């Protein structure tokens, strides 16, 4: 089974609004989630100008956008995805 794919936006707005704390997410990850996600930093997801979205920082988890992302939000969604389809 493929690992989950987490893409973190390193663009200006996202970084200023909290992506700086997401870049070290691997170190803060609960034990049960470790090794189950592949993390990539991207120069910019180009989502910050989309007024329909909720606000930076943005990440994509398996292609799904998470708005105002925090480590906890990402962990919760990871758990849901893993519960639905365990590795």
């Amino acid at each position: 089974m493929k690992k989950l794919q987490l893409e973190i936006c390193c663009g200006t707005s996202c970084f200023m609004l909290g992506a700086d704390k997401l870049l070290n997410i691997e170190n803060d990850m609960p034990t049960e989630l470790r090794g189950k996600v592949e993390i990539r930093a991207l120069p910019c997801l180009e989502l910050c100008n989309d007024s329909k979205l909720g606000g930076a920082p943005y990440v994509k988890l398996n292609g799904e956008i998470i708005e105002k992302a925090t480590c906890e939000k990402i962990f919760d969604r990871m758990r849901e995805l893993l519960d639905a389809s365990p590795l």
Partner: protein
Amino acid sequence: MNHDFFVEMESFQFTKTGQAACGDDIQMEVLKNENRYLAVLSDGLGSGVKAHVLANMTTTMALRFLRSNMDMLQSIETIMDSLPVCEVRKISYATFSMVDIRLGGITRIVEMGNPQYIQLRGDEEVPPISHKTVTSSHWPDRQVECYEIKLELGDRLIICSDGVTQSGLGEGSAYKFGWCRSGELAFAQEAIRQKADISSYALARTISYKALNISKNVCKDDISCLVIYLRTPRVMRVLTGPPYYKENDAEFAAQASLGEEHTLVCGGTTANIIERAVQKKVQIDLASLKAGASLPPAGRIPGVALVTEGILTLTRVCRALEDHEPLDTLPAPARAIIDMMMQHDRIEFIVGTKVNEAHQDPTLPQDLELRRGMIKRISTALNSLYRKETKVNYY
């Protein structure tokens, strides 16, 4: 100006151990309209603040006289007459070397009391040719050596204070008379053999470190080394900001053609444009990222460019350039950019002028400057403070 040449003038200094200020001073100036490059290195009597003041007075006056083409003997006499006289030694003392390069013409070097210059063509020395010794009637005990030489593309001039040539003095039989000019010459030749295109800064730094090393890492006298290198200009291109019209993206991206060592891409959207054009992905190494980093991490498009975030990183670079902040104290992406800029002579900015509206959001925790103004400031700093040639093109 002659665009086949770039005159790279850089220096490196160590202050005598225990002193607050360096007793040597170096000043350089480019007179673009006249195709002239001026540099002065002075070593003030003694060490510390007093020596620095003497050296700084000397370099400031000498540069002004060189600039205005004042008669050499008259210049030197004015400098000597102006310096305060040492109560102990009864002399007004600052030694100096003055260099006046006229591209396509004669280069004049004037030395008083400083170690003799070194001229290298590749790794071969061009020995100092016959010269004129001038003595002032005001200061009969001081002799001034005047040289007129011809510099060619690929030549280097190395000028240093006696802190370099006398390093190691008294440190055992190997350095009975210090490192000497001959030791410095052999070391510089070897450094060029190892890396034929070594930059002026790198050569000045390695010579200074060797001199310090010979003195067992205790700086017994101020160490100063100035290197001047006539070379084919090294061009670097900085691409930043998406073009105002999207249909210009391809033309904009085509500018990223100088290779990874010479191309810098600043900005997330800009990186995406280049990614699409070259069909290669940006690689960002998160493993090296430190917690609490103040700037987003840098990445690379292999073989194409160094990639960083845009406006935050450029703002940090601008501040560091304007304030001459030491490289080691900067966050890694800003350090990488400045390091790259210092390795190049001509820096071309390719600036997309589209404004990211999200950056104007008043809820962002800090004000973001507009890219155009920031690039203008960086360009001005590189030009006036670091003697780089710059060009800005807008898209």
